[in-house]
């Protein structure tokens, strides 16, 4: 082999800059795929196991490919979770708080971004404190307050704080809106003012339409976080009301009380089927709106400057 062709080969394999050669590319893709698999592994296993019948489940030879598709697990967990009714309630304490929290935090973010106000620094400090202080610290007086207000063990205990911008991660959303509204050019507001619009009209007809990406991102994250929250909701909703997630925590006892199921003991296939039923709503949302989740963080300027 001539030296020049050797060098050419070397360049093609190893590349000029370390990662543009064939070997480098191969290594890069291998790494990304392997790590991606680590992420997907629990989901794949969950799905495969959820369609196994008891025979496949205990069989040592059946691991990744079940001998048949067995949907009884889904039927059972559908009944145990009381899926239709529970889903409806879950959505009530997820979609509504997410929507109202988005609106309230956007108002606060707009105020901080557009107006010279007294005590603005104090407000910022308070917002940061609410982010750093864990909810656990003040949830006990909140519990007492809700008892006094008579909204304990009702959806209002979730809805009311969200309405007033004190819901889950409200601080983060205020900061998102603050960053976003701050980036909007001030000239637009000024020309609206010259045309005779008052500040509220300016907000409605210029602020909101231009901030649609921020609204969508805040709403989606709020939705997902409310969906996944269980610590506070289990405290405030009590025993009689339950979301899908809370139902999963008490799956065992719910199973023993359930009527009209053919399976007699809870096995892992049934549990996996229930878990899948619970992540399906957010999973579908994610697949449809993926762009807004992943790019939203960058686009809304959460990452700061």
């Amino acid at each position, binding site marked *: 082999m001539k030296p020049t062709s050797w060098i050419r080969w070397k360049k093609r394999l190893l590349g000029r800059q370390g990662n543009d050669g064939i070997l480098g590319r191969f290594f*890069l*893709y291998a790494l990304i795929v392997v*790590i991606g698999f680590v*992420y997907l*592994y*629990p*989901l794949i*296993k*969950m799905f495969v*196991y959820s369609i196994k019948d008891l025979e496949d489940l205990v069989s040592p030879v059946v691991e990744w490919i079940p001998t048949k598709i067995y949907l009884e697990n889904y039927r059972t967990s559908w009944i145990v979770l009381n899926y239709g009714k529970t889903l409806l309630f879950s959505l009530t304490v997820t979609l509504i708080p997410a929507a109202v929290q988005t609106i*309230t935090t956007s*108002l*606060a973010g*707009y*105020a*901080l971004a557009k*107006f*010279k*106000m*007294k005590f603005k620094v104090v407000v910022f400090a308070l917002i940061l404190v*609410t982010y*750093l*202080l*864990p909810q*656990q*610290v*003040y*949830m*006990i*007086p*909140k*519990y007492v*307050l809700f008892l006094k207000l008579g909204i304990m063990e009702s959806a209002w205990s979730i809805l009311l*704080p969200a*309405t*007033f*911008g*004190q819901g889950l991660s409200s601080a983060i959303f205020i900061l998102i809106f603050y960053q976003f509204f701050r980036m909007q050019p001030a000239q637009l507001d000024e020309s609206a003012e010259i045309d005779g619009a008052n*500040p509220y009209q300016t907000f409605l007809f210029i602020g909101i339409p231009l901030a649609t990406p921020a609204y969508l991102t805040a709403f989606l994250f709020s939705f*997902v976080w409310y969906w*996944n*929250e*269980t*610590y506070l909701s289990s*405290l405030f909703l009590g025993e009689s009301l339950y979301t899908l*997630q*809370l139902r*999963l*925590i008490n799956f065992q006892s719910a199973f023993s009380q359930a009527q009209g199921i053919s399976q007699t003991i809870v096995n*892992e296939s049934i*549990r996996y089927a*229930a*878990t899948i039923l619970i*992540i399906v709503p957010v*999973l579908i949302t*994610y697949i449809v709106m*993926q762009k807004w*989740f*992943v790019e939203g*963080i960058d686009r809304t300027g959460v990452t700061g400057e």
Partner: protein
Amino acid sequence: MNRAKRNNLVGWSFLSIWMVGFLVFTLWPIATSILYSFSNVSIQGSGIVQVWIGLENYRRIFSSAVGFDFLKSVADFAIELLFKVPIITVFAIIIALLLNQKIKFRGLFRGIYFLPVIIASGPVINQLISQGAATIPLVEESGLVDLIGTVLTPDLARPIAGIFSQLIVILWFSGVQILLFIAALQKIDHQTYEAAMIDGAGPWESLWKITIPALSNMITVSVIFTVINLATFSENPAIGHIKRNMFAIDTGFGFASAVAWIYFLALAVMLGLTVFLVRGMQKERARR
């Protein structure tokens, strides 16, 4: 009315809903929580009965079995953080570097790596762990976990073995951090790399001399996010104590409030220490 005054008023009108909420649902509860932590609180037919007992609740945390249980779970959590925060941070940086390359299906991979953020609720993770879907069999079968148990003292071995058996779950907590680092990477000017290359720097040197320093602020942000995210995760045993003590007959709201405040103080110290360490390491690096 002059312009400044009007601006102030309009601004506050936008902020008013949040402000009312803050006073009622956050500030008042925080103040009451402090009072509770110094009191014996019980619910009776006539309402809440609050008796001031000074530091008794706090003294009990450090002198009773219930208190020791809680303190132990906080200590365990601190050791966990010691391992999890570096693992998550380093891992997130590596993934962000990989995903920032020009690769095919970049959107798909990003989607996969961010997926856990969407579905990882406490109960779901709990199911995955208890049914064994969160461990890769290879890690278990390699005997690594048993080996750790024989080499180290049980107190240290427990959290470390836990980390290996939950590696997937740990990686599942890095979705947001990966996106933060990708955003920071995209803000680095390409010309910096080109200039460095002309000066003879290889990719390895560029990584340490350009990329990592440019990420330094984001590393701090990501570390803070990681600590808070892990600390308030609903399956964290330490915060489980707060809720359990609320309704236990021998403890109640007062004791639980004190536990919550001790937890917050411990968290603040941990957060301060980690940020101090991260910042210190960055300064050290900058000096060299």
